[in-house]
């Protein structure tokens, strides 16, 4: 195949794969920075993906779909917030429940509304915009994702709000002592994770494709967690990690197109193996926020 065409295919594949990961990864990052582990990203993405398609189906506008996804994502995140922040639930267990509920609720809704075998009809998706050199037009979600990375980077590292959020994840007692409302900041972190995971889901269902299929997130919520760790809980890092994972997936696709005999499983495995190595300190140490996963109880 022509090298330019091949390069363009690789870039497009990388970006398409990286976009939902980046969005969900940012969500996981905000939650953990505030001290709440959210492994329910997968289930939240699923709900977001479904709500986006349903909103777009009813209104004919992908923007209404995106709005529906965000509302649904916030509702799911609120469940996690109430359980983790107020009921002192084990956050990993609550996240596991959300993953199961997300898959169950969307499947239920599919069977109730469309009665087709696990697939929605085609709906209006976000447009492909801006004619870039070589790669051509890209889906609007790809630009949104990069824009949100930039905003997140500034919010987390350059604003007082970001400093407060990080303080709650590192040392909530100290944060509380200097007058930061730990409960409120953790609500922000958790709700943001719902917002981002839902947008990530929408970027799949009304971005990369234009319909919902049962189980369509297929583990991306977990890869996003990997990207968050590999990216060391920083927006820029998350972005680079996702692009790297995307490249890995893109190469698998290119190898198949070109008939190169490398088992695609090696590319599929790469993000996970690299994350394990990163965690083990083989390729740069990755340390989570110190207080994540521990419920905070205000001293009286």
């Amino acid at each position: 195949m022509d090298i330019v065409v091949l390069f363009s295919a690789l870039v497009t594949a990388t970006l398409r794969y990286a976009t939902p990961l980046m969005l969900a990864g940012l969500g996981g990052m905000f939650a953990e920075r505030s001290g709440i582990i959210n492994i329910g990203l997968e289930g939240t993405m699923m709900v977001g993906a479904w709500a986006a398609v349903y909103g777009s189906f009813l209104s004919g506008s992908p923007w209404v779909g995106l709005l529906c996804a965000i509302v649904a994502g916030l509702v799911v995140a609120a469940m996690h917030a109430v359980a983790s922040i107020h009921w002192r639930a084990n956050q990993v267990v609550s996240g596991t429940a959300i993953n199961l509920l997300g898959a169950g609720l969307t499947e239920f809704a599919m069977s109730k509304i469309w009665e087709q075998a696990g697939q929605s009809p085609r709906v209006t998706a976000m447009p492909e915009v801006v004619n870039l050199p070589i790669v051509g037009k890209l889906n609007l979600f790809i630009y949104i994702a990069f824009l949100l990375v930039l905003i997140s980077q500034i919010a987390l590292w350059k604003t007082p709000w970001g400093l407060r959020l990080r303080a709650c994840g590192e040392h909530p007692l100290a944060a509380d002592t200097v007058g930061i409302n730990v409960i409120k900041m953790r609500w922000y972190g958790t709700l943001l994770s719902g917002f981002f995971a839902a947008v990530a889901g929408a970027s799949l269902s009304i971005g990369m494709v234009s319909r919902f299929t049962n189980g369509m997130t297929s583990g991306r919520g977990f890869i996003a967690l990997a990207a968050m760790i590999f990216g060391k809980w920083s927006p820029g890092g998350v972005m680079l990690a996702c692009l790297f994972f995307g490249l890995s997936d893109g190469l698998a696709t290119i190898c198949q197109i070109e008939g190169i005999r490398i088992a695609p499983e090696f590319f599929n495995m790469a993000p996970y193996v690299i994350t394990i190595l990163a965690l083990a300190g083989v390729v740069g140490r990755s340390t989570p926020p110190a207080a994540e996963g521990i419920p905070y109880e205000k001293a009286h």
Partner: protein
Amino acid sequence: MPKAGKALRDFLGELTVPLLAIVAGLLVGVIFILIAGKNPIAAYGALLESVIGAPHKVGETLVSTVPLIFSGLAIALAFRCGLFNIGVEGQLMVGSLATAWAGVVFGGLPWYLLMPLCILFGVVTGAAWAGISGLLKAYRGVHEVINSIMLNYTALFLTHYLMTEHFRDATGKAGSPPMAEAALFAQGLIPGSRLHAGLFLALFVAFLAWVFLWKTPWGYEIRAVGFAPGAAEYGGISVKWNIVLAMLISGALAGMAGAVQTMAISGKFPDQSSFSGYGLDGIAVALVGRNHPGGVVLAALLFAALDYGGRNMQAVAEVPKAVIMVVQGAIIFFVAAEGIWRMMKNRKPKAEVKTA
């Protein structure tokens, strides 16, 4: 008999949260059955009928129970050490592949050597896979949940690669070559069902897990680490060693789930592109069973009934199977949110609490 009275009260106290969670979960199910426009009584009736309506149905429910007992025990044992082994899915998968491989390669052995060998392969492989998470947790401080999730996906793709490239059925069927007959559990303990002796193995292992946790010093140390790692360390118990040990045993149990399921049901390593789900259900089983082997067996029965009955509920009462997923998710959520039940309890007047 004040001591026996206290033991009974403790036992009933342990049961409260799981029972409340199950009832709450089933009520959530009622709401969704109503939304689906069906009769909840008829739907749950169909579920119950398909679980206990005939001997072979009971048998099939028990078939679904077996892997859940193993995976529930795996997760419960890790929980007792303060570890969340969400990696049972992957450990089960590598165990299953190793068992299938042993069943083909050593196929010439007589059954009394081959069957233990096959189980051993599954157990050791599962333990080794979990051991990675245990070592990284103990010596590098890496959170076992994140590591296990990564290892799950690594296992998914690695086993698929090994199967398709090095261990493929020569006749072109999907999955690995079939295991030797001598390696397989006989089915049909209850006629018309696939019930196999793996059930007795599961119950026996549950008993062993109880003995291990409460009647041996190793079990005591593991529980001490789970209860208060700082105090355990101060008391001369090695936290690091116990974390590794608990993960190894947990992985061994997960590997056994894979081994038994392979030797009793599939007879080979199937070509699968997703997880079995036993690891996920095992979390619910362990939580509802209060991380106690006896509770795990009962909870495994409940979740197997929901799973197996749910499939028939869809066929008979036309209620989508997804309702059962929602019920299971809700039960896990309500068990996790234990605090809410405690909060309700604490609203009682203080005097009443004192006299209790």
